[in-house]
């Protein structure tokens, strides 16, 4: 159990800065998920904490101790790699025991810890096998086991599920969450998969181009995205983002096509005519006879629900998620409920909250 504090962490590779100052603070036992598209710097951040890369500036403090310049071997951090990174020439037992032997633990203690972790992960029958004799899911478990037996201060997960097939990914996801809760080890988890991010994290850090965009609970990130990037990144299908202008003394937005959307939660700052981006999640768009006509270009059945991609009269694209199978044909009429509206500044992309 330990706290992790990251202060003003920056990293450049040559002339290119990939992390522009990250501040973070994790409570003991917390699981923080770092999420972002490829190239946003999330893996670099993790490798800096691991000690596999050296930061250009900033500080990393684990459990009150400054570890910024320590060798990875001295940090008391365990990491689960994307491709498992098991030692191919060692048995499952030896893979897990390797770090313990280096620490000079007595043999019975090593035995006890490895068997305990193996029992926890359902690996008891496989302890004598070599990694190449295991399936992907089993290898992932061994990699987890290798981290668990160390009883480290911090777990790092570097996209540990991305090499597994979809079904296994879901069950391993649940297993990781269960284990992390049970062991109570502070964890950093990197992923590009927003479903993993939503389901695993106590909190999310959304990274975009090396900058922290939002740090909040998953539901907060979903309900109140900090800017248009987060709004478009979290949630499937992605939120509709429509160009609009502020109007009616700041109490409504007018879409390019002329549709007026009054704000349910209050007035926004700025003069009439201020450029806005308004967001509406596809599942929040309602089908309403007599509403705005929508010409449907594409129907994507997902089983329990269906995504409709359509055009409004002014040719603006809009996606709509409806329950069940779509039988409505090529035209429909929709309404945008004011309570589900997200309002952003068009220029900065930042969320605009109502004035108090």
């Amino acid at each position: 159990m330990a706290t992790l504090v990251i202060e003003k962490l920056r990293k450049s590779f040559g002339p290119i800065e990939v992390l522009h100052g990250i501040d973070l603070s994790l409570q003991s036992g917390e699981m923080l998920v770092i999420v972002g598209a490829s190239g946003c710097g999330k893996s670099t951040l993790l490798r800096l904490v691991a000690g596999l890369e050296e930061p250009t500036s900033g500080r990393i403090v684990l459990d009150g101790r400054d570890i910024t310049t320590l060798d990875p071997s001295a940090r008391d951090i365990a990491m689960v790699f994307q491709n498992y990174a098991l030692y191919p020439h060692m048995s499952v037992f030896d893979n897990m025991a390797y770090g313990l032997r280096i620490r000079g633990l007595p043999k019975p203690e090593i035995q006890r810890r490895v068997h305990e972790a193996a029992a926890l992960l359902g690996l008891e029958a496989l302890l004598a096998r070599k990694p190449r004799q295991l399936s992907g899911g089993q290898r992932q478990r061994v990699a987890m086991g290798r981290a668990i037996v160390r009883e480290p201060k911090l777990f790092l997960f570097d996209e540990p599920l991305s090499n597994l097939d979809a079904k296994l990914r879901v069950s391993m996801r649940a297993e990781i969450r269960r284990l992390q809760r049970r062991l109570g080890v502070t964890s950093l988890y990197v992923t590009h998969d927003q479903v993993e991010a939503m389901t695993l994290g106590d909190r999310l850090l959304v990274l975009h181009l090396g900058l922290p965009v939002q740090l909040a609970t998953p539901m907060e990130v979903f309900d109140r995205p900090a800017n248009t990037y987060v709004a478009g990144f979290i949630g499937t299908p992605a939120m509709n983002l429509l160009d609009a202008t502020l109007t009616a003394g700041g109490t409504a937005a007018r879409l390019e096509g002329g549709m007026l959307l009054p704000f349910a939660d209050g007035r926004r700052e700025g003069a009439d005519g201020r450029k806005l981006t308004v967001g509406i999640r596809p599942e929040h768009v309602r089908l309403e006879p007599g509403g705005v006509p929508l010409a449907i270009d594409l129907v994507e059945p997902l089983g329990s629900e269906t995504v409709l991609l359509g055009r409004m009269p002014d040719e603006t694209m809009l996606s709509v998620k409806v329950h069940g199978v779509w039988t409505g044909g090529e035209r429909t009429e929709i309404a945008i409920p004011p309570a589900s509206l997200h309002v952003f500044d068009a220029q900065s992309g930042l969320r605009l909250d109502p004035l108090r």
Partner: protein
Amino acid sequence: MERRTIFAGWKLPLLLVAPQLVLTIVFFYWPALVGGWESLTRTDAFGVHVLFVGLANFHDLFADPRYRAAILRTVEFCAAVTALSLGLGLILAVAADRELRGRDLYRVLMIWPYAVAPAVSAVLWILLLNPQIGFIGRFLASHGVNWDYALNGNQAMLMVILASAWKQVSYNFIFVLAGLQSIPKAVIEAARMDGARGWYRFRTVVLPLLSPTLFFLIIVDLVYAAFDTFGTIWAMTQGGPAMATETLVVKVYNDGVVNLDLGSSSAQSVVLMVGVVALTALQFRFIGRRSGT
């Protein structure tokens, strides 16, 4: 069913493989067969009468203390060349595997010796080590070392080992470097996270993953030292002084071409051929077993 044949009939395929086939038959099988036959014969001093003697040549060979000494000498020579060239290749490859300024230049320079012909490399070493004109030779002589490989057998042996190993370092370097680079970075990083440092990490993670490469190289180096060093040794010492550097291949040449004892020389060739076949079989078996799992 997959169609595996591309050519109809057998005339065109035969024509296409003919050049290689002719080369192999003329330069490998034919001499080997002639050598095999000659190893069972004895020729008189004028080359007029050829007498079939069965295995007498082999019997004489293994009864000859000088031949047994040559075997021992060859084993020592091969072991020394292999250990030296593989050890150096390993050290240099580990050094070259890191992030290094001028890494590509370093790698190119490391590979150069391999492109030097054996006789040329022998001349290079003579120019360095000759007691009268060699840079190192004169340096040693001026510092009171009694250096003269033309008289001192141990010094001659040391010299041919050095020259032979030097040429093979490049080959080992390339393969070890390739082996090191095929070890996944994440595995090394996992070992670092597990707390393994320096030599311990190298010994417990890197070396085991490199062992197939090293085994392959040991066999290749042994074969190289036993056979391909003829040019180097012949150009430097002709097997002397007093047979101090006469390895088995050099002895084959000395006995057959210089002393014209064709029967014994052929018998020695046959013994060497059996040796190569054995080493190759060992290698194939090992590689076959690995890829089979």
